[in-house]
């Protein structure tokens, strides 16, 4: 078996208030070279914080612990200075809101050139040429003109393409995409996702795709990690996790999907809300909202483990739960 490109080992992120509370608690994630892996979960589950911690980009006050291994090199996540060496050349990241993510007072071409300056040996003129090439590569018409444009002069989709071009210019081995299409129209969303998929294949990049859109995950990723309240509660191949979910939280998520032709049924919801960071249950974090919960679930938080024939899940009752109703029409990413 080939070694993982990135492996996150027992990642925790501690917030300043209340003291000792954890936004992410003991998360393990592995990504193989060239693999597209998704992390899904609702807002505040810790998926973005996990991604930021891998590049040492956490907001002041947040501290990360755990180990990160990338291409054979091992890092302590609390050592943000060392993690800087990974930025750009090894791991590039694109973000949710492409407007606020670009410097409003600088032409986008110059921002891209600055990134190239930090990550390549190209001289000034070569960088300028490369900027135009990269913009053309991500499907921007009139790339030379767009390079001179300011962010406010471009549409949301164009701005996201600029960020993607910036990422591709670093030729990273891993691209972290933090909800890259959430701020975009649905039609643009599909174009951006297809662009990302093409680039990942062409450049032989791996992708960590952070999303709450199970539809996109099903279509574009091979494996998925489901996070809830700072923990990974289930992981496995996308097809298996979404069509035969094991953990009650994943089941609930999948059942909430709106399917065409479902008629005028009431939309399904998960009762209750995510526990607040300063009032985490002692036992399983999903227990208060879980319809399968038994008294044992309140005693201790179950670790994630292999469930025979069903991937990995963090649920005491994983084996005994009734067969789930999965997501209809899920295909493995390879078939697309």
């Amino acid at each position, binding site marked *: 078996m080939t070694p993982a490109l990135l492996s996150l080992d027992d990642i925790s992120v501690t917030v300043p208030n209340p003291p000792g509370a954890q936004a992410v608690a003991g998360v393990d994630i592995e990504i193989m070279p060239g693999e597209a892996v998704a992390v899904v979960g609702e807002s505040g589950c810790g998926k973005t914080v996990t991604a930021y911690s891998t*590049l040492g980009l956490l907001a002041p006050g947040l501290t990360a612990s755990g180990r990160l291994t990338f291409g054979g090199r091992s890092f302590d996540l609390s050592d943000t200075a060392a993690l800087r060496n990974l930025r750009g050349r090894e791991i590039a*990241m694109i*973000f949710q809101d492409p407007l*606020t993510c670009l410097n409003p*007072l600088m032409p986008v071409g110059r*921002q891209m050139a600055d990134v190239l300056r930090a990550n390549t040996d190209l001289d000034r003129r070569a960088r300028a040429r490369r900027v135009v090439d990269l913009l053309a590569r991500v499907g*921007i*018409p009139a790339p030379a003109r767009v390079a001179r444009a300011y962010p406010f002069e471009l549409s949301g989709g164009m701005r996201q393409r600029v*960020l993607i071009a910036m990422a591709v210019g670093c030729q990273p081995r891993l691209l972290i995409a933090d909800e890259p299409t959430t701020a975009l129209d649905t039609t643009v969303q599909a174009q951006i996702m297809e662009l990302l998929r093409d680039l990942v294949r062409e450049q032989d990049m791996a992708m960590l795709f952070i999303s709450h859109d199970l539809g996109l995950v099903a279509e574009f990723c091979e494996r998925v990690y489901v996070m809830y309240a700072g923990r990974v509660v289930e992981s496995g191949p996308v097809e298996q996790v979404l069509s035969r979910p094991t953990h009650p939280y994943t089941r609930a998520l999948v059942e909430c999907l709106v399917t065409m032709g479902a008629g005028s049924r009431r939309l399904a919801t998960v009762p209750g809300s995510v526990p607040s960071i300063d009032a985490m249950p002692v036992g399983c974090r999903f227990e208060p909202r879980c319809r399968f919960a038994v008294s044992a679930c309140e005693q201790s938080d179950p670790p994630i483990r292999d469930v025979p024939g069903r991937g990995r899940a963090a649920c005491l009752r994983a084996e005994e739960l009734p067969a789930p109703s999965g997501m209809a029409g899920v295909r493995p990413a390879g078939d697309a």
Partner: protein
Amino acid sequence: MAEQLSRDDAGTARAGSRRPVWRPPGWVRALGSSLAQAFVVAMGATFVVFIVMRLIPGDPARILAGPGGSVTAEQVERTRRELGLDQPLLVQYWDWVTAALRGDFGNSLVLNDRVSDLLGDRLVVTAQLSFYAFLVAVVIGLPASLLAARWQGAAADKIARLVGTTGIAVPSFWLALLLIIAFQGVLPTFGYVPAGRELADHLAHMFLPALALGTGLATLVFETNRAGMIDTLGSDYIRTSRAFGVSEWRIFSRYAMRNAFLPTMTIMAIQVGTLMGGALLVENAFALPGMGRLVVQGVLSRDYPVVQACIFVIVVVFVVVNLLTDLLYAVVDPRIRRSRA
């Protein structure tokens, strides 16, 4: 989306035929509206001062006509006519403004001298003092704000903020008195030496006044720019640059400093008026022969033309500085420079 842009390309190429009416570019219209606004502000401010001066109790005609009980009502009335003070206010204002725009501020009611002659040298002193105070503010405030933002939360940052908050609260004339007491015998605390005669001596005499006047603005520049820097350094686009491996130094010096400076620039421009107002008080404390003494005497003796001329100068400086800031903004901020809306 690709389609949209190519259509847009074609649209620009055909712009001539589709939009035959020439529309001035954004910056020309920005300049036009800034100029118009500046003019309105200058007229409004001088008008208010004109009216307020006349609402202050005390009649210059009575003061000028002679002392106490020896003056008859007719004498006072004649003086009033001679001074043009019997005209309606609006007529008086109009006469004054049209003359002022030609550089003629009339004669002093008290000192028997042309106001423009009285102003001349004093204006130079006040301008020098304001300029030095501005330099003090920039030289102290800006570097301190950058250091404090870089090492945010460190002991030095906390001390700087404490000094800053205190500095904003301290009135300049009070600080002037403190400095005079503290530096008595160390630095000149009294009088003025022209720059042309002995530059070192000139600067020595201006140092304490400039410090007294500039400290308030320095702390304001410090607070504004520090907050702007911290805000910018925490922004999404700085995070993007970090995520792509751009060095921390480059981010600080090329991205954050420039972006944070925009609001600071606005504050500095707005404060220029306050600075000149403060200069009048500080001049009195240090016995500098600037406009300050002239204004105080003018107000006390109801010498309308002198006070009006001084205020006029301050208003014009204020308006011109703000106009320049607007233009500078358009140069620095592409969202204004390139807007076609």
